[in-house]
């Protein structure tokens, strides 16, 4: 979190909520992508992104910069929004880890040229446990640090690193079949 971002946050917390605007511009893409990866629906991702930023705006005073970075705080709100969404849509009990399975039905809503790869990848990633998958996604696609992943998932940084390492090791052992699936989706 750089000084300019911190200055905007501090300003918001002192009542100048107009300074939320640059924070929004800084994080909108990442938050949207996070939600889209887990819902595979443009419409749902937009709804949830709106929810996340409105909640963040209203509760920014509760963010403590000494306890973590702003981006991780936003991801935590996004994570909770996802759980709420799936809970309110016929899934009475749902954990963040199972969201991957719930979203699989909407894979075909991706744009045509990417849908096949995405669908195959979706299947291939199921070789990981939901817990492992979440951490791999946060690390590989979101590009988050272990500290941020720990902040979002509620695990310790060391634990997040161990889970990630084990996940990669597992992927490696199953790499040939996984990557064959990814590289030649039409042949399978």
């Amino acid at each position: 979190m750089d000084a300019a971002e911190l200055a905007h946050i501090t300003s918001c917390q002192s009542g100048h909520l107009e300074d939320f605007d640059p924070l929004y511009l800084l994080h909108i893409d990442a938050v949207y992508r996070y939600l889209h990866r887990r819902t595979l629906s443009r419409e749902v991702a937009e709804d949830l992104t709106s929810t996340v930023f409105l909640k963040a705006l209203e509760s920014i005073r509760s963010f403590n910069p000494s306890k973590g970075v702003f981006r991780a705080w936003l991801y935590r709100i996004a994570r909770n929004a996802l759980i709420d969404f799936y809970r309110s849509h016929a899934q009475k009990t749902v954990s963040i880890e199972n969201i991957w399975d719930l979203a699989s039905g909407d894979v075909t809503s991706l744009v045509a040229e990417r849908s096949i790869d995405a669908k195959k990848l979706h299947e291939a990633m199921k070789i990981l446990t939901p817990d492992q998958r979440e951490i791999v996604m946060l690390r590989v696609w979101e590009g988050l640090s272990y500290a941020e992943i720990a902040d979002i998932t509620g695990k310790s940084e060391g634990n997040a690193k161990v889970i990630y390492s084990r996940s990669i090791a597992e992927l490696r052992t199953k790499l040939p079949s996984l990557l064959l699936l990814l590289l030649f989706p039409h042949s399978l």
Partner: protein
Amino acid sequence: MKTSLKTFLADLYEIDPSLKTHEAELIPLVEKLLASDPAQEPDTEFVKRLRMQLQNRVAELGSPASAGFSRWLYAFGGAVTAAVIIPLAFVAVNNMKPTTAYKQDGSALFSYSVKEEGKSAFGSLAGISETTAMSRNQSGGGGPVGIDGGMVSARPEMAPTAPLSETSNANDVMVDAKMIAPFPMTKYEYVYDGAFPELTSTVAVYKRITASKSVPFSALASSLNLGNIDLASFAGMNMDTVSFSQNKPYGYQLNVNLRDTSVSLDAQWEQWPQSKCQTDACFQAERVKLSDVPSEDQLIAAANAFIKDHSIDMRHYGTPSVDMQWKRDYDRAPNKNDAWIPDSIRVMYPLVVDGHNVSDQSGLPFGISVGIHVQSRKVMNVYGLMSRDYAKSDYAGVSDSQQIKDYLGKLDNYAWMPEADQKDVKTATVTLGEPVMGYSVYYRYTNNTNEELVVPSLTFSIKDVQGGDQFFYRANVVVPLAADMLKEQMNGGMPIPIDGVRAM
């Protein structure tokens, strides 16, 4: 932000170092895995809509400063009385607290605003590439340059075929594609086979409004007795520029230009250490060494600290990056002892328009630059602080990706050269990476002034160059998405034929 291939592999090797021996096989496989990210970018309209929703919510929440939330939406609105402006200007300069510079009605001396205009409100966008050297075709070598003292410009892009001495750099050698052959000739073919982002038939173009701030000189003259001339006797004068000097070690000089509404900050050189060298040996001993150069993180931290200390308003600027173009020249230099290392390095904060970063025509960030003196690690200059008031107008957009491919096919094309002379021209292939949607700045010279236009553009990174030579300096290819401009650039920017030069 995706994890890079390098990071991904590093993680793999941490688990199993033996995998490193299979790197050649792993790289294409891992690249595929990274490229299979199912995420999509948010729709531009959605980003705008949500932004507006948040602004409305701020107003509802009754923020003490909620009136100011939309202050950047207001145009400054013509003349401001000296009684208000001058005290505010001095408060702003002395305290560098942007919030104290605002008038009670919510408008600022220097502001950010966007004013909607009707369709095609800025006239035809065709002809821009020919009317000013700063906006020629990117292969034309002109590139953006600083104007009006406040604009941030990228280093001029060297013509792809320009000769370069072993120890020179792109700053030292200004080579224009209009140079007459012979010089090494390479025809670069630009190839992009990937997908395009969603292209729209209408695009929003922004034009910077540069109405000067009218401050009557009489307001100042009445209280300033020079002794040898009666300033108040000059009726009808306005104050255009104000300069301030800080007379202390490592002090600064600050120039406020009310004509183009910009502020620039430079080292007050009398207060900075100067070389007293008289011999080459002394110069060599003092010259900047690679080991003197701070890391990119350190440079950004220094810039951020300065911004914080001086309350520079960064609300409309994005994530900073360090301009490391000099390093490319350094890396290419065969003799590192003679290679040039700059004495200051810029940290760039891109202007953000409509949720997108703005770049110059070479694809480098356009906005505020903070120059860090390498050896003292102190901020040496700040450029690009200015009013960002824009008028916005819809124009026909480039909705057919084939047009973009056609344009890429014509880049760096020597069709102007007689066929007989083309036999010595070698061909190189430049593979372009996935384009990023954003805005880039173009200049139109009209009525003796340069108009700044911010135009939606696609920026392609250079992924690979096969068969090229060491003189290839293009780092990106920027393609404007306003239909008129693309059409014009497709046909313009060609080097002047030899006969034409001789006739001049």
